[in-house]
């Protein structure tokens, strides 16, 4: 909270801000929540857990055939083990990795709510939780992909995964050509959040370098 919003409550705060602030005050007074714990929860998902986690997992799968095999066989163990990444826990208790190939393109959605693999991708973007995506991904995934600028060959099988249970899915996108011999760190920079949901592809190296980042 910045000091200006304390100085002029009501004049600057929206109705939702006032309502949530009142709720938090009440719950702290009751002793049901610890405000420092709330700070820690926000800090975790705003700054520490996000799609860079998943990008590291994908980069290792591209670079290390034994890890790829483990990931596709038991993603929960391969991603969560202390000796690999230790990405585990809430909304990633049971993970499955889906590998894209020239024949099969996987897309993940949760039509019923917003199930998403938090330990590897962080919190879902607004569009993933929204009615347009949740309604259309299962019936018109090619139309959805077109809105993300992705067009796949007509004979590519589009396989949509509706997250109806506590199994959380992440996509392993295809490794871009022209990346032979790259380090995992360099490879990870090509892995976008959307490529791990299935609404995007990994960045090609040339475009990536032209973009300068």
């Amino acid at each position, binding site marked *: 909270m910045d000091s200006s919003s304390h100085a002029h409550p009501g004049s600057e705060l929206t109705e*939702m*801000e006032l*309502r*949530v*602030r*009142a709720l938090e*005050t009440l*719950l702290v007074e*009751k*002793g*049901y*929540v*610890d405000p*420092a*714990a*709330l*700070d*820690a*929860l*926000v800090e*975790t*998902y*705003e700054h520490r857990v*996000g799609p860079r986690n998943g990008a590291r997992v994908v980069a290792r799968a591209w670079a290390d055939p034994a890890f790829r095999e483990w990931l596709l066989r038991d993603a929960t163990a391969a991603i969560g083990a202390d000796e690999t990444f230790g990405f*585990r*826990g*809430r*909304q*990633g*208790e*049971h993970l499955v990795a889906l590998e894209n190939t020239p024949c099969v393109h996987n897309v993940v959605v949760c*039509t*019923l*709510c917003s199930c998403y693999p938090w330990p590897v991708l962080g919190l879902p*973007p*607004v*569009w993933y939780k*929204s*009615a*347009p995506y*949740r*309604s*259309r991904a*299962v*019936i*018109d*995934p090619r*139309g959805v992909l077109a*809105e*993300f600028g992705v067009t796949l060959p007509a004979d590519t*099988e*589009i*396989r*949509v*995964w*509706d*997250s109806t*249970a*506590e*199994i959380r899915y992440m996509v392993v996108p295809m490794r871009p050509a022209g990346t032979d011999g790259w380090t995992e760190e360099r490879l990870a920079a090509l892995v976008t959040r959307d490529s791990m949901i299935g609404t995007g592809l990994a960045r090609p190296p040339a475009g990536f370098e032209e973009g300068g980042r």
Partner: protein
Amino acid sequence: MNGAQDLGGMMGFGPIDPEADEPPFHADWERRAFAVTLAMGFTGRWNIDMARQARERLDPARYLSSSYYEIWLEGLVRLMLERGLVTREELAAGRSLAPALEGVAALPAAGVAAALGRGGPTKRAATSPARFAPGDAVRTRVIHPQHHTRLPRYLRGKAGRIVAVHGVHVFPDSSAQGAGESPQWLYCVRFEADELWGPDTTASSICADCWESYLETPGP
């Protein structure tokens, strides 16, 4: 329940509109709403299935016109009121007007990392053999329960094939009602897209996780 949350196959919501470089939160109230919802969940007064059911019980018009964290807040308030943790008067006043419910322990800041790391695994020990195996043909049952279910409408009464067996998991339909975990075998089922949508689809197949009681052996 056949609520507004069950969106698969609906039409008319418009374009998806992804935001470039989207931040995790769009306003400070979203940060606090997210954290308060998680923290109250850690008090153990309800489970994740009850939380989902509370959100789904929102009036459909309200559900579809609310932002995601507004829906979370509505669900949270409903759960707290139902369990006597707070009163409407206290919510309106924004302060405590009565003693707190006894035995409710706040998650301490020092416990956040461990609590998130533990998560809430739903896998349980098997006490009976699985009825189905990969490759088996199945059909989903036609059900329309009044309570929470994880079988979406577009997947009811449809033919599919088992592609994976996930083990035995807590059954949300039971858990959401406070009727116990009643764990069941959970399967990944693949449905051909034309079985679900006829010619009006650009999907090839849909995979969804289905509990054993959602499934039956197809008739001859």
